[in-house]
């Protein structure tokens, strides 16, 4: 696929103007929160992952980033909020882990047998493996076409798009002398934000950390730093298995706040 040849469609080129009142209305009526199911994180984010926004989870290796993604996918799907699209780059999407998370949920208010619920919920989580940046562009393009055409998954509208992890796709292309990689990174950001806003879905991406001057810092550098609306750092204490989430960046709330949360024992 050649990026340069891609022509935006007519309706994309003329985005309608909107004023503050309309945006406020839009925010109140459509931009709901999607729960991650992890109490600490939901509190920290004022209710969960916001529709229309791009949230980034960053953290060291095995700090719980993928777990936050799996929890969010399971909870959003379980609460009838819509379908979830999970783009997996490191073969770490674990259906058995999702089944285990669902199993621990209180039997829903609607009287639904556990196995029926399991099948229903799991069917509305769709996973696709993506192993390079070109494949990601292709998938996002396909998704946009589908969403524009109002194709739904099983009658469920996609409300959560997860990329775990976006940094492993971007790592091979950024840095070095040529700027093409950087511009590809920016166009990933643009597409994600556009999808999130236009189709009222929440985008959740994970980013790894690299050694910084003093403490480890999120990877992908300064130009990516400006991209996510919310940047959340997770860490895990290996002995107690208690995780801590810290907001590094939040468009509405003060950053630097932290909350503890605990993941279900796996297995």
């Amino acid at each position, binding site marked *: *696929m*050649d990026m340069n040849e891609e022509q935006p469609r007519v309706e994309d080129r003329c985005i309608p103007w909107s004023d503050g009142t309309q945006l406020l209305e839009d925010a109140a009526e459509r931009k709901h929160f999607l729960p991650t199911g992890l109490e600490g994180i939901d509190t920290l984010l004022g209710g969960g992952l916001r529709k229309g926004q791009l949230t980034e989870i960053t953290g060291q290796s095995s700090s719980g980033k993928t777990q936050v993604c799996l929890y969010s996918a399971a909870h959003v799907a379980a609460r009838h909020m819509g379908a979830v699209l999970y783009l997996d780059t490191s073969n770490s999407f674990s259906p058995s882990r999702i089944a285990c998370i669902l199993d621990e949920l209180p039997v829903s208010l609607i009287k639904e047998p556990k196995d029926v619920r399991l099948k229903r919920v799991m069917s509305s989580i769709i996973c696709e493996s993506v192993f*390079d*940046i*070109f494949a990601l562009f292709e998938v996002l393009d396909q998704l946009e076409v589908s969403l524009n055409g109002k194709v739904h998954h099983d009658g469920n509208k996609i409300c959560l798009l997860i990329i775990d992890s976006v940094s492993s796709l971007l790592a*091979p*292309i950024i840095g*070095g*002398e*040529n700027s*093409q*990689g950087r511009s*590809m990174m920016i166009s990933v950001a643009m597409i994600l934000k556009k999808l999130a806003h236009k189709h009222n879905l929440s985008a959740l991406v994970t980013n790894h950390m690299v050694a910084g001057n003093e403490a480890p810092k999120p990877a992908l550098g300064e130009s990516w730093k400006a991209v996510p609306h919310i940047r959340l750092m997770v860490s895990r204490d*290996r*002995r107690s298995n208690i995780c801590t989430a810290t907001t590094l960046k939040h468009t509405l709330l003060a950053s630097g706040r932290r909350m503890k949360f605990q993941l279900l024992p796996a297995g």
Partner: protein
Amino acid sequence: MANKLVSDMCLPPHLAHLLAARRLTTAKDVLSLPEVELMSLLDAGLATARDAVRHVSEFACPPCQTALALLEERVRLGGGGRLATTLCGLDEALGGGIPLGKLTEVVGPSGIGKTQFCLKLALLATLPECYGGLNGRVVYIDTESKFSSRRMIEIGQKSFPQIFRQEGLAQKMAGRILVMRPTSLSDFTKSLEQMKVTLLQNDVKLLIVDSVAAFMSSENERGTTGFTQHPLRWALSFLKSIAELTRIPVVVSNQVRSQSNDDGYHYSFEVKRMGDGVGAERLESHLVAALGIQWAHAVTIRLVFESHSGQRFIKVAKSPMSPAVAFPFIVESSGITLLNDDGIDVSGPEITSIRCQGGSQKGA
């Protein structure tokens, strides 16, 4: 094969031209670029770049063998291909002796008998095959000026009196050993570079470097670690490739340095044990190999020479063939002799530790 020329690969003409025009002449040039960087350098689309990478990879990829073919080749080339040390227990533990084509490390405190061991190996390799030798020449890189022909002949006369009774044989054996005495690190790397030619020309059957750490320890104090580590890393992969290319055993000796604390011995997930007996014991004399963990990863076999409980031991500390086992030994006029051939099983951190009790420090 990394330097395989793109022009020799019979690529489709359009790819060959494209790569040549961008001065990508070797497989290394093409393959060490990430996909996106290659695309922008070639000013080509993804399909073309992937095509080029696919073609070049296929040519640069070494051939595949099944393990069975490998085994058959090994058998065809005569047994497992070992240089017997004539120390029965040790030979048995190593599956016949020092393996050909591999890098073997001998590490221990000074004066414990590493050089004695090296001298013996050198002697053995020169012996005719009927006496268990390799009937070839030996290159002995002596960085510490410790090589002594007289001592070697003494070892030979005492351990193989029946052979050395023959007239002039001792001189002939000694003549087969080429000793190099590099005086600096650059000297050392230079002699290594010339090595390949020497080895192929002179029917060399054993390469010994005694010791490989000599230059490193003195020059480490001056420069930063990163700077001086580099030639060493190069020497490491070079020695390995020599071993494989020429299918001869390469034996290197390594010194030790003392380690003051437990730093660098634990992972972050391991709970630190405070104040238990192990710590106190370690304070006594805790040694580590002078060349760090990276070197240790690279050698195929590591023999640790150490002393404790009033005895000296040779310990098989790393070997893909055999379990960890230690043999008590003494140094006699006939060289190193094992006190028994049964060996003592070693387990746990004892396998990698290097102990040194006073007394044997300056034994030889």
